[in-house]
């Protein structure tokens, strides 16, 4: 528990900044929606008919001129990219920062099983991702209330649930990378998050890349796949969790045995 609290203290500033930026931007986007909506009558049709460009961002499936559509496309991009990067940072930095900062010798000579210390670190990163998503969800609701628009609860909550799973999956992948590398793996982690994001764009653009939906968590967490049917493809979420947990466990057991440098 001491390590859990220490991890929280260590990352609290980063978590606060990312949460403020992402949730704050989401809020600001939604505040300007009423003004944009007035001017967007015809623009929405144009956005929806830009071919691959519209498809890449899901604008061919949800209407950007509606509050939920705007939230899913504009604010959603902020949450999914920002959240994905934060998850990559939290997961990717978790273990390798000890070796990179030469604190591993101190930490891993404390009288605890190494696997326990790794578990507390993973738990700290996981709970930070949960808190980030909780704040973003509440700020999103607050934004809808501020502009006097109705939240379509089912879609809204499904979307945020999917975002949480997506970020946890990215976090677990990056945690594994962090365990495998000796020095900083932040760059690799962010690279992984961005790769997942672009894979989802390929899936949206062409049917030939449809198989990639089994590999990128951004697909099941994309608002344009959730809002039109008011449902999440749970089998993809489950598959993503299997990938993520397998990666995290691989990282944990590898790190529990590896030589600390």
């Amino acid at each position, binding site marked *: 528990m*001491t*390590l859990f609290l*220490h991890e929280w203290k*260590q990352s609290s500033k980063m978590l606060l900044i990312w949460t403020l930026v992402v949730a704050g931007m989401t809020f600001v986007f939604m505040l300007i929606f009423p003004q944009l909506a007035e001017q967007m009558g015809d623009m929405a049709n144009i956005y929806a008919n830009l071919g691959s460009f519209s498809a890449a961002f899901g604008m061919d499936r949800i209407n950007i001129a509606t509050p939920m559509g705007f939230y899913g496309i504009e604010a959603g991009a902020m949450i999914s990219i920002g959240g994905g990067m934060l998850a990559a940072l939290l997961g990717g930095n978790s273990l390798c920062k000890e070796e990179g*900062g*030469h*604190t*591993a*010798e*101190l*930490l*891993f*000579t*404390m*009288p*605890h*099983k*190494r696997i326990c210390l790794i578990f507390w670190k993973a738990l700290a990163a996981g709970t930070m991702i949960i808190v980030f998503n909780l704040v973003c969800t509440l700020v999103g609701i607050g934004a809808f209330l501020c502009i006097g628009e109705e939240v379509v609860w089912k879609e809204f909550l499904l979307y945020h649930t999917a975002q949480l799973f997506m970020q946890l999956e990215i976090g677990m992948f990056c945690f594994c990378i962090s365990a495998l590398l000796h020095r900083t793996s932040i760059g690799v982690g962010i690279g992984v998050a961005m790769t997942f994001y672009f894979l989802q764009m390929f899936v949206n653009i062409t049917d030939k890349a449809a198989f990639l939906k089994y590999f990128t968590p951004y697909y099941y967490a994309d608002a344009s796949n959730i809002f039109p049917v008011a449902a999440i493809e749970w089998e993809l979420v489950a598959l993503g969790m299997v990938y993520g947990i397998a990666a995290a466990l691989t990282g944990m057991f590898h790190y529990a*045995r590896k*030589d*600390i440098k």
Partner: protein
Amino acid sequence: MSGTEKFAIETRKLEKYYGRSRGIIDIDLQVPRGDFFGFIGPNGAGKSTTIRSLLGLITPTGGEAFILGRECGRSRTDILKKVGYMPSESCFYDGIKVKDMIKLTAGMRGKDCGQRAAQLCDRLCLDVHKRVDELSLGNRKKVSIVCALQHEPELYILDEPTAGLDPLMQQEFFTLLQECNDKGATIFLSSHVLSEIQRYCKNAAIVKEGRIIRKGSVKELAQSNVKRVELTTPSGRESFLYSGEMSKLISQLAQKELMDLTITEPSLDEVVMHYYE
């Protein structure tokens, strides 16, 4: 008490290879409980590798190691409860205050070490309100010392602990260690500063290129068969270390036109340097 339990540290043919490169080879160590033991060697000799193997930071590729009668690896967690370790590098978390770092290590041990920690900080003149990354190397070493000593372990494993400490603090540090030793704790001190080994340690081992080349009491090591020979001839003065049969030395010296000759016991520094030549 079984053989292994008599020793604070015991290793049998401990070996560590990093791929093909040598870490340590056939390290046989017996450090009795209550000893003040010096582990001597230059950088890269294998001192830290031995310590890291003992503490479970790295997995040995061969041999066995026991700490306080318990097998390293299998009983690692129980062993670490009774060990205070000071790494050679004093690195801490960014932005953390001294008092929080000390509290963190005590908390990780599930102990309230507040009183002892305050006592140590006072004796080492350590400002606990400063951030660790604002401290000089010497002051960071002091934080390391407090973290390693505050829980009053049975065994202290100290890897080059005095680097960066000023002479006054070095003296205070050794006084602290001496006090712990007097109370029955075992001190295992890795160092390449031979004067401190000679002054404070009872027993020592010399490690070279991953192997222990000499071990015994510090007195015995200093009184090895190595002699400092100083001679004056018409062509000038000569000084060298000699190890070998004394009769051969005498017969060789007899061929010279000696004006003056002294054969003395060398210092531990000189003896150790001789092994590395």
